[in-house]
């Protein structure tokens, strides 16, 4: 099997298949590290995590220890987390605030811009000692509306070019509040013993929602005395966003803190949620505001970032640690100035579905690990992703997954990439926006 043949993409036959060796082989994983994780823009963190000068956060991205900080001048800085002297980690706590970054090993000190400002017994170094050369090193980094990315290649284009159509979808999150959006304290950190691409697929897979997450829908229906919503009949679509990014955008079938009322939120919250919607319509116009308020979006930014704007807004990033394991971290976002009952409602809404203790996420973890074990069974060489290939892509079709895999194929096989939008919206096209049906206890089956 040639590397270039791992994705079988035949629109003429309505067939799209992925060879399962891509999910299990260490050789493929090594290629992914070089050709995907060393070349793509990768999510690092959010600027709201470091509001003040001296704030820092450490994180591992593609197996590399990094940390990001706000320097004394209030600028974002990102560093490789290693002392230029002999290698020890500079930043050894997950987050904090510092005037100076000091390596504990030989006590070399760096200011918040990474410049070497001191070390013990400096006389031991000769006149040619170059402090600048021994300062902290930065990878390429950039931020889009607060979302910070790094790139370990100089040859990749700019972040905004890389994001392509995904930038507009980040806007739909970032613009939800004039105060800006922030990451809420507390994160979900867990390991899934499955190939990382399974979580990319799962995060934009509308088809699995009803069978896998039946207990969630039953719970919501029981909670408010209604029926399981007509998830398979809701209006929505999948689309490719360029460079392997993909999204499914659907009528919301659960409440959205911004801003779609659901009986679960309680009658008393109705006027406030309506007010948020009215304000956003005044600020952004009907179409954009209705998308923000009444549509849910599950997006993958290639290769390993998920922004799900569903019953809550979550950032989910997964770091592969081998062909059959990944470390997942997920956060929740809220308007920077949200507090009190609105924030409480949002936090509660997240927990109904999301997170390791939620009513749905554990079953995704189970599904992915189950697939990984299934791959080892043999007998079946290919996985199928052809759903909706023959029609205008609906929200629970698989166009958005195919766009991920096409990009994956061109990168791992080092082939030129050709954007394909199938029968979906192309880059820059705007979807027709109709109000979503009101959510009520009498939602039909």
């Amino acid at each position, binding site marked *: 099997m040639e590397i270039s043949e791992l994705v079988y993409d035949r629109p003429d036959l309505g067939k799209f298949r992925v060879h399962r060796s891509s999910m299990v082989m260490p050789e493929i994983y090594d290629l992914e590290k070089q050709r995907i994780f060393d070349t793509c823009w990768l999510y690092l963190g959010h600027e709201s995590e470091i509001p003040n000068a001296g704030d820092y956060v450490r994180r591992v991205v593609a197996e590399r220890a990094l940390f990001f900080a706000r320097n004394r001048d209030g600028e974002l800085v990102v560093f490789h987390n290693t002392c230029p002297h002999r290698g020890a980690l500079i930043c050894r706590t*997950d987050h904090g605030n510092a005037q100076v970054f000091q390596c504990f090993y030989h006590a070399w000190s760096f200011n918040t811009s990474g410049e070497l400002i001191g070390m013990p017994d400096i006389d031991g170094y000769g006149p040619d000692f170059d402090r600048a050369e021994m300062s902290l090193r930065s990878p390429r980094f950039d931020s889009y509306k607060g979302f910070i990315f790094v790139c370990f290649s100089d040859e990749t284009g700019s972040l905004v070019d890389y994001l392509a159509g995904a930038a507009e979808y980040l806007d739909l999150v970032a613009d939800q509040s004039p105060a800006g959006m922030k990451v*809420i*304290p*507390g*994160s*979900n*950190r*867990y*390991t*899934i*013993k499955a190939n990382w691409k399974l979580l990319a697929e799962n995060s934009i897979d509308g088809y699995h929602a009803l069978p*896998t997450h*039946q*207990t969630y829908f*039953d*719970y919501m229906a*029981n*909670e408010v005395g209604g029926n399981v919503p007509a998830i398979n009949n809701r209006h929505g679509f999948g689309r490719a966003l360029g460079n392997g990014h993909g999204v499914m955008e659907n009528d919301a079938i659960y409440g959205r803190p911004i801003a779609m009322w659901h009986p679960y939120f309680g009658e008393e919250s109705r006027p406030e949620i309506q007010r948020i919607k009215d304000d956003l319509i005044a600020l952004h116009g009907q179409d954009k505001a209705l998308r923000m308020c009444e549509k849910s979006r599950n997006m993958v930014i290639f290769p390993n970032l998920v922004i799900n704007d569903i019953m809550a807004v979550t950032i989910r990033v997964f770091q592969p640690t081998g062909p059959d394991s990944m*470390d997942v971290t997920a*956060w*929740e976002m809220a308007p920077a100035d949200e*507090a009190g009952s609105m*924030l*409480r409602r949002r*936090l*509660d809404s*997240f*927990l109904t579905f999301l*997170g*390791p*203790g939620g*009513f749905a*996420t*554990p*079953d995704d*973890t*189970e*599904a992915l*690990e*189950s697939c990984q074990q299934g791959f080892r069974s043999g007998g079946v060489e290919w996985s199928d992703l052809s759903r909706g290939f023959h029609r205008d892509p609906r929200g629970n079709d698989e166009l958005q997954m195919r766009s991920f895999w096409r990009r994956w194929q061109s990168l791992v096989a080092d082939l030129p990439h050709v954007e394909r939008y199938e029968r979906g919206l192309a880059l820059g096209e705007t979807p027709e926006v109709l109000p979503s049906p009101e959510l009520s206890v009498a939602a039909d089956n």
Partner: protein
Amino acid sequence: MTTQTAPIPPAVSGLPATAESLLVQHEVEQLLYLEARLLDDWNLDEWLTLYTEDARYVVPTTDLPEGDPASDLVFIDDDYNRMAARIIRLKSRHAHREYPWSRTRRFISNVMVTAMAGNEIEATASVAVWRFRAGESSPYVGRYDVRLRRVDGTLRLCYKRAILDLEELSDHGALSIIF
């Protein structure tokens, strides 16, 4: 010269050993052991009867053990209704992470009654829950902070905050059991 000894904060001092506090200690231990036993036996309906109807069950995230469900992301923030819903889910065949159910064994130790006021008691305990399923065998380790209330002569739990010592759910992938 006198040595000054700072008073030990009441939260960790336990109570003086009186006949009453020994009985309370025994009662609290027995209730926590019973809870562990019912959960290990997957006798979830019976488990819920140990709680008052205004109960709250909270599990903070591993990176923010002091997390407050009103302002921070936590793993679990259940009122009595959602505890009941969690049971319905776990008893169905569709909680896939727990179908079939894992085998668990809970070890409760270091039980300390830290406060008594009116009909309420506060206590802390160390806990390790070993969970075995699908080749996985690693413990959830942490601490319980509980509040108990005597209702019609019977001691019940009205609050449980189960704080994980784990840095992340690295071996577990989820918190699919009641911790």
